[in-house]
């Protein structure tokens, strides 16, 4: 049956049809929906792991046990999982194992624009790259076949525009697949003596895969009428090329991006007058062509920054792009993402900014604490970097930073890789204060459960990791919990813990206001007569508060009645809705 399906859902469908039995991932835009969709098939076990390294190692264990397995992550997640990646390349698999990595050209929801294709070459693992949902489904199934045929994990590379676009697919039945586990120390124990014997096998495998790449159907030449130019491309760039050029030029469409074929590319280049490589982000196909001694035009024409579009490809290939439509002459104010009304993070960041505290931040909704008017963050690097960064900052500044520096990290991010940094703080004794903003969910990626929520991916109750106990267990004696909706209590706790001459953890706990079970209070009421237009309430950057005719007004459709603004107002102009 024909269906319209998101690229990520099509990967999940591919897992189902290929008989995958084990799925372990950490959420990250634009990869999250693969695992969410996979969890809806009862035939597959699916879980959120605390981080991508754990997910990949778990998936490896499952394939070793004889079940086809999967792990999914965003591009930066593959950095976290890079350690097992490079060595499971040596061991190979038992049942098939597929690793999905989703890049984010254009950085719609990411901290960098890294190109994951380099990992395939560096770890010597084949990588398939679909260009729509139908290919996402087909390539996922093919990836399992390749994995078992060539004894290797297989990378499946998605990108935002493929992951988050729906296109038409046709489904098929699930085919169960499993293998017995047999002990094989030479293959699976990667100590030097064994690994030295495995490495030549990895190199031979790549050569065998190059041969496969020469003739496989997913690396195909699409004929064109004009041989003055030939285009080599893949993924979403292929779609833009076809959109602009149709069947004008011959196109070598690469479905397997590593290892790349050699003869196929040489023959294609010989069949056209000039070769243009159209690929998003880095020079990868182009670099391969150069290594083969083929003259191509790639990054001399196309940027290595940002995602492409059909108009960009048209312009670079010298084709006419449609004229821009009419534009309103007024300056259109930007509409950046903001912390939601009722967000429990808001008052915490207000307090940090008010006290001019240096705050090393992390990855999540609370990264929005960096945005005006709160502007309360000093850094955002990667998952967990707030905690370890604050340790280094505090140590380097000696006593000077003691009363002024904190780390701010979310509950899920803390479980992902904050706890190791906290162990370092305890072990190496830095006088650091870590604030865990515990909103009882993984917020930014769209409300995924995590080890601190007490529920698993399927929504069933499970073991809940207790943050207070965990922090104490790693050696932090000062651990306290505050309600961020209570401004006074929050400020007192922060100032006291900063003043203390030992490491401390403050857990700022209040569930995300968007969670379905969170009951909202009636909207805050404004007494316009009492409002002195001081705009103090505007300093918390709440989208529900604005000034109208010089007086504070509340948008009742947005206000959740969190009452933080009522605690700010010195004149009693804002009061809780239930009081009025």
């Amino acid at each position, binding site marked *: 049956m*024909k*269906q*319209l399906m*998101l690229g990520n859902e099509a990967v999940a469908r591919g897992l189902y049809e290929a008989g995958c039995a084990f799925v372990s991932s950490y959420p990250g*835009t*634009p990869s*999250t*929906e693969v695992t969410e969709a996979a969890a809806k098939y009862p035939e597959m076990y699916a879980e959120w792991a605390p981080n991508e390294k754990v997910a990949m190692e778990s998936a490896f264990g499952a394939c070793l046990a004889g079940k086809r397995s999967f792990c999914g992550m965003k591009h930066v997640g593959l950095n976290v999982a890079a350690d097992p990646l490079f060595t499971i390349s040596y061991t190979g698999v038992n049942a098939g194992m597929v690793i999905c990595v989703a890049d984010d050209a254009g950085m*719609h*929801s990411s901290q960098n624009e890294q190109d994951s294709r380099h990992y395939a070459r560096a770890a010597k693992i084949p990588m398939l790259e679909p260009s*729509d949902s139908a290919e996402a489904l087909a390539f996922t199934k093919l990836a399992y076949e390749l994995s078992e045929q060539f004894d290797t994990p297989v990378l499946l590379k998605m990108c935002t*525009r*493929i992951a*988050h*676009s*729906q*296109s*038409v697919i046709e489904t098929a039945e699930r085919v169960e697949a499993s293998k017995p586990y047999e002990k094989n120390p030479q293959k699976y124990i990667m100590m030097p003596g064994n690994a030295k014997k495995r490495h030549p096998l990895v190199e031979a495998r790549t050569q065998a895969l190059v041969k496969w790449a020469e003739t496989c159907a997913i690396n195909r030449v699409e004929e064109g009428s004009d041989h003055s130019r030939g285009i080599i491309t893949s993924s*979403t760039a292929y*779609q*833009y090329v*076809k*959109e602009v050029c149709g069947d004008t030029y011959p196109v070598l469409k690469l479905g397997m991006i590593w290892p790349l074929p050699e003869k196929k590319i040489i023959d294609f280049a010989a069949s056209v007058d000039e070769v243009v490589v159209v690929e998003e982000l880095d020079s990868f196909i182009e670099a391969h062509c150069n290594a083969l001694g083929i003259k191509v035009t790639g990054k001399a024409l196309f940027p290595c920054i940002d995602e492409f*579009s*059909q*108009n960009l490809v048209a312009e670079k290939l010298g084709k006419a*792009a*449609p*004229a*821009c*439509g*009419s*534009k*309103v*002459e*007024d*300056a*259109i*104010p*930007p*509409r*950046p*993402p*903001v*912390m*939601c009304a009722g967000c429990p993070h808001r008052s915490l960041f207000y307090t940090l900014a008010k006290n001019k505290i240096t705050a090393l931040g992390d990855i999540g*909704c609370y*990264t*929005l604490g960096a945005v*005006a*008017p709160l502007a309360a963050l000093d850094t955002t690097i990667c998952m967990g970097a707030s905690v370890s960064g604050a340790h280094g900052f505090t140590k380097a500044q000696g006593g000077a930073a003691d009363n002024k520096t904190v780390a701010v990290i979310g509950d899920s991010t803390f479980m992902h890789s904050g706890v190791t940094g906290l162990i370092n703080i305890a072990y190496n004794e830095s006088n650091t204060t870590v604030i865990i903003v515990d909103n009882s969910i993984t917020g*930014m990626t*769209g409300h995924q459960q995590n080890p601190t929520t007490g529920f698993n991916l399927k929504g069933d109750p499970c073991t809940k990791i207790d943050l207070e106990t965990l922090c104490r267990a790693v050696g932090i004696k000062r651990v306290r919990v505050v309600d961020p909706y209570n401004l006074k209590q929050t400020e007192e706790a922060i100032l006291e813990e900063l003043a203390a001459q030992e490491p401390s953890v403050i857990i700022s706990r209040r569930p995300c206001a968007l969670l379905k079970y969170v009951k909202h209070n009636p909207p805050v009421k404004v007494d316009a007569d009492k409002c002195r237009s001081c705009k103090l309430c*505007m300093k918390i*950057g709440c*989208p529900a*508060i*604005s*000034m109208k005719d010089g007086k504070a007004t509340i948008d009742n*459709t947005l206000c959740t009645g969190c009452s933080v603004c009522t605690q700010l107002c010195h004149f009693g102009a804002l009061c809780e809705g239930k009081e009025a």
Partner: protein
Amino acid sequence: MQTKNIMIVGVGGQGSLLASKLLGRLLLTKGYDIKVSEVHGMSQRGGSVVTYVRYGEKVYSPVIDKGEADYIVSFELLEAARWTEYLKEGGHLVVNTQQINPMPVITGAAVYPDELVAKMKEKNIVVDAIDALSLAEQAGSAKAVNIVLMGHLSRSFGFELEEWMKAIEASVPPKFLELNKKAFLLGREA
């Protein structure tokens, strides 16, 4: 046929995903090739969001570029003005007259431009400005703005009302079916 391009724009949280789901469902039953491109993740948090819907015999690119859109459905006035240059000359804009201030306007760092509907009408595009929020409230929920606007857009397509209703049935939970059908009809008549 040439590929048709529809953009659904608005503010994160206004329900553009449901609108595109509805349209995609209906177009699929018509046998078209379709691509629908959505925004997930960080930019959803109250930010400017855009969904691209493309259909025809064979659709390649998942996105719509400047000067390519046949229709733009905007859930908010400022967002309509932000995206008008994506419309073709003579393209059709269905815009909700509701104004939602972005944070730079709330903090006073920027100004919400005035008379946007009049200014857009001066351009070589067709502008249907409707108060979708009032109609949604009339249907029973302010959240039905998305369906009101899709109801209005539906007048520009040759599909039967019954086919739209079937697509609504397949896209919304039974609990909200009557509300959404009512909202759709109010938008279609507006």
